[in-house]
C-alpha cells in the first residue's frame, strides 16, 4: 500500500487559485464520495482550509493514482488541469507522512505554530470517517499526526506568544488582570480600528464595552455595530475611564488627548487599581510619560508590534525542536508501515508451509489411519510444531530485511 498526498497550499499557489480550488465550499463529503467512486484509491481524506487543499490517499499504484488525482483536482473544482498542475505538489509514502505531520504541528502554516490547523486536520479525519473512506492506513496516519500536533504543543513553545496585534493586547490584559470577565473596557474614538479591537475584547469575555466619541451619534452607531456595547458623550470620558480597567484610544486627533496629568487625575480615585491603556492611534493619543504612573500600563501600536516580532522570533527558534518531534514520529510510522508491508509475505509463507504439511499428512493417510486417535492427534501436533520452528528464522529475517531497507532510506539526504 502506498501513501500519496496531492495538494496546493499558500506556499505553492496564489490566493486566486486557492479560492477556486476550495473543497470546503463545494462540500468535502461530496468530494470524498466522488473520489471513492473513481476507484483509483483505497482510502482517502481531504484536508481543506483557506490556506491549503490536499488529498491524502492510500493506493496500490502511486503513478496511476497520481494521474487520476490530478484530473480529479481539476474536474471537481471546474478548473482546467493546465492551471492547477504547475502549483500541485505530490508526496509519496514517508514524505507524505512527514508532510501531514508538519501540517498538523503548524510548521507548514502561514503563521508558524498557529493552533487552528490541528483542529482542521482532525475535522478532515472525522469527515472521512463519517463518509467511510478511511481505512487502517489513513487512520494510523491521521492519529499519528494528532499525536505530533499534541507533542509539539506541549513540548515546544512553537505556538506560544501572540502573533497579532489584537491578540498581543488581549494576552497583555490577561497577564495584568487575570480573568477578563468582569472587566470594563472603554474605547475612545469611533473609528474602524477602535471598533475592531473592541469587538475582539468583547469576544474575549469582557463585561462591558463603552464607546466614547466627540460625536455622540457616531459613538452610538459604533456601539450598535459591535452589539452589547454602550455609548457615552465625550464629556463623560473621565467618569467612564475611572470605572474601566482597559482603555483603548483610537481617535484621529493630531495631538494627545490624554496627558500624564490627566491620567494621574483619573488614577487618584481608583486607588491604584491597574489601568491598561492601549494606544492604537497614529499619531498617538496618550502622552508617553503617562506610562510612568505606577499602576498604568501604557502600550502603543509600536510596542505591541515589537512584542509580536519578539514572539515570532521565539517561535522560529522552536522550529528545530518541533522538526525533531516530526522526525521521531515519522520513524515510528515508517516502522509500522514496513511491518505492515511484511505481513503479506509472512502470511503467504505460512500458508505455503501449512499446505505442504496438510498435503503430506493426506499422502500418508493410509498409514496414519491405523493409529489410535490420540496418537494421530500427536502426529498432527508434532508436524505443526516442526512447521512453526522452521518458520521462525525466515520470519525474523523478513523483519530484519525491512530494517535494512529502513536504514537505506534514512541514509538518503533529507529532502
Amino acid at each position, binding site marked *: 500500500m502506498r501513501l500519496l498526498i496531492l495538494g496546493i497550499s499558500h506556499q505553492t499557489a496564489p490566493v486566486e487559485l486557492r479560492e477556486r480550488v476550495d473543497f470546503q465550499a463545494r462540500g468535502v463529503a461530496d468530494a470524498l464520495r466522488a473520489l471513492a467512486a473513481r476507484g483509483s484509491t483505497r482510502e482517502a481524506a481531504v484536508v481543506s482550509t483557506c490556506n491549503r487543499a490536499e488529498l491524502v490517499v492510500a493506493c496500490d499504484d502511486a503513478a496511476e493514482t497520481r494521474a487520476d488525482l490530478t484530473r480529479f483536482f481539476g474536474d471537481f473544482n471546474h478548473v482546467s488541469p493546465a492551471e492547477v498542475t504547475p502549483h500541485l505538489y505530490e508526496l509519496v509514502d514517508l514524505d507524505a507522512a512527514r508532510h501531514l505531520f508538519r501540517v498538523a504541528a503548524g510548521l507548514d502554516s502561514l503563521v508558524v505554530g498557529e493552533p487552528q490547523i490541528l483542529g482542521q486536520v482532525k475535522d478532515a479525519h472525522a469527515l472521512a470517517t463519517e463518509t467511510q473512506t478511511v481505512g487502517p492506513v489513513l487512520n494510523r496516519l491521521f492519529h499519528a499526526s494528532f499525536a505530533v500536533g499534541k507533542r509539539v504543543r506541549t513540548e515546544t513553545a512553537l505556538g506560544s506568544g501572540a502573533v497579532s496585534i489584537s491578540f498581543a493586547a488581549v494576552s497583555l490584559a490577561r497577564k495584568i*488582570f487575570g480573568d477578563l470577565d468582569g472587566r470594563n473596557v472603554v474605547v475612545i474614538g469611533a473609528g474602524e480600528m477602535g471598533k475592531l479591537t473592541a469587538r475582539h475584547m468583547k469576544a474575549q469575555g469582557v463585561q462591558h464595552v463603552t464607546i466614547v466619541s466627540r460625536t455622540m451619534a457616531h459613538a452610538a452607531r459604533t456601539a450598535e455595530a459591535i452589539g452589547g456595547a454602550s455609548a457615552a458623550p465625550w464629556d463623560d470620558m473621565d467618569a467612564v475611564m475611572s470605572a474601566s480597567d482597559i482603555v483603548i484610544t483610537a481617535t484621529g486627533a493630531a495631538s494627545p488627548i490624554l496627558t500624564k496629568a490627566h491620567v494621574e487625575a483619573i488614577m487618584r480615585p481608583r486607588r491604584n487599581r491597574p489601568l491598561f491603556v492601549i494606544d492604537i492611534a497614529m499619531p498617538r493619543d496618550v502622552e508617553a510619560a503617562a506610562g510612568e504612573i505606577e499602576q498604568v500600563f501604557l502600550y502603543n501600536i509600536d510596542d505591541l508590534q515589537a512584542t509580536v516580532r*519578539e514572539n515570532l522570533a521565539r517561535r522560529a527558534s522552536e522550529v528545530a525542536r518541533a522538526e525533531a518531534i516530526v522526525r521521531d514520529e515519522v520513524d515510528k510510522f515508517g516502522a509500522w508501515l514496513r511491518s505492515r508491508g511484511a505481513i503479506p509475505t509472512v502470511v503467504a509463507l505460512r500458508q505455503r508451509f501449512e499446505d505442504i504439511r496438510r498435503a503430506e499428512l493426506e499422502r500418508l493417510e493410509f498409514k496414519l489411519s491405523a493409529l489410535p486417535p490420540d496418537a494421530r492427534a500427536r502426529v498432527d501436533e508434532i508436524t505443526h510444531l516442526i512447521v512453526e520452528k522452521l518458520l521462525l528464522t525466515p520470519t525474523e529475517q523478513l523483519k530484519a530485511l525491512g530494517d535494512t531497507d529502513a536504514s537505506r532510506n534514512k541514509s538518503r539526504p533529507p529532502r
Partner: protein
Amino acid sequence: MNTVPLALYAAALVAYAWHFAQRNALVGRTATTLLIFAAFAHTFVIGMQTMEVGHVPIAGTTSAISTFVWLLALAYLYIEMTTDERAMGVFITPLLVALQTIPALRPSVEAQSDVLRGPLFGIHVSSLLFAYASFALACVIGITYVLLFKEIKAKHLGFFYARLPSLQVLDRMNQVAIVIGWIFLTIGIIVGVVWTAQARGGYDAGDPRIQAMHLQDPKILAAFVCWIVYSFELFAARRIGWGGRRAAYLSALGFLIVLLNFVPISYFLTKSHNF
C-alpha cells in the same frame, strides 16, 4: 535524621528550577512529587521526634526551624494544588533547603525546658511558626510580582511573562498570605505576653530568661517591629491603595526581619528565648 528531608527538598529544588527553565510538564510533576515525598519524610521525622519527647518538637530553636520548614512546605503544596501554579516552587524550595540545612547539621535532642509548661506555650510557638510560613509565601509572591511588573512596564515580555500568573492574581495571593500571617502573628504575640505574665507569677519567676522577657530583648523587639510592618501593609492596602509593587516590597522587608529574627537573633542575641 533531618538529612533525608533535606536531600529530598534539594532534589525538588533542582526539579522546580529545571521545570521553570524548560516548562516540561513531566519535570513539573516530578518536582511536585519530590516535594510531596520530602514533606512526607519530614512528617515522619517530626512524628518520630514527637513520640520520642512526648510533644511536637518546637521548644528548641533548631527543632522549631525544622518544624517551620515542614509547615512552609505543606503550605506551599496546598497553594500549588489549589491554584495549579508551579512557578512559585523555584522561589520557595531554596528557602526550604537553606533553612533545613540548620537542623540537618545540628542534630539536637529536643529537651523541653521545665520553664516551658502549659498549653499557652504550644499555642504561642505554633501560631508564630504558621505566621512566619505565611509571610515567607507572601515574600516569594511579592518578589515574583515585582519581576513580572518590571517586565510588563519595560515592554519586554520575556522569561517571567511566559511563566508567572497574572499581576492581579499575585497581588491577591500576597494579600491573603499577609492577612493570614498577621492574624497568627497577633495571636502568637498576645499569647506570649499572657504566658509571660503567668510565668512571672509562678514557680519559675526567678529564671533569668523569664526576667529578660520584655520589649528590649532583640527577639521580642523584632517580632514587634514585624507586627508593625505587616499592620502598616494591611492598613495601607485598604486605606491608601498601597497594593502591587509597594505591598510586594513591604512583604519582602517584613520577611527579612522574620528571617533575621528566626536564625541569627535566636542563636546569638536573645536572652529571653534561648531554650
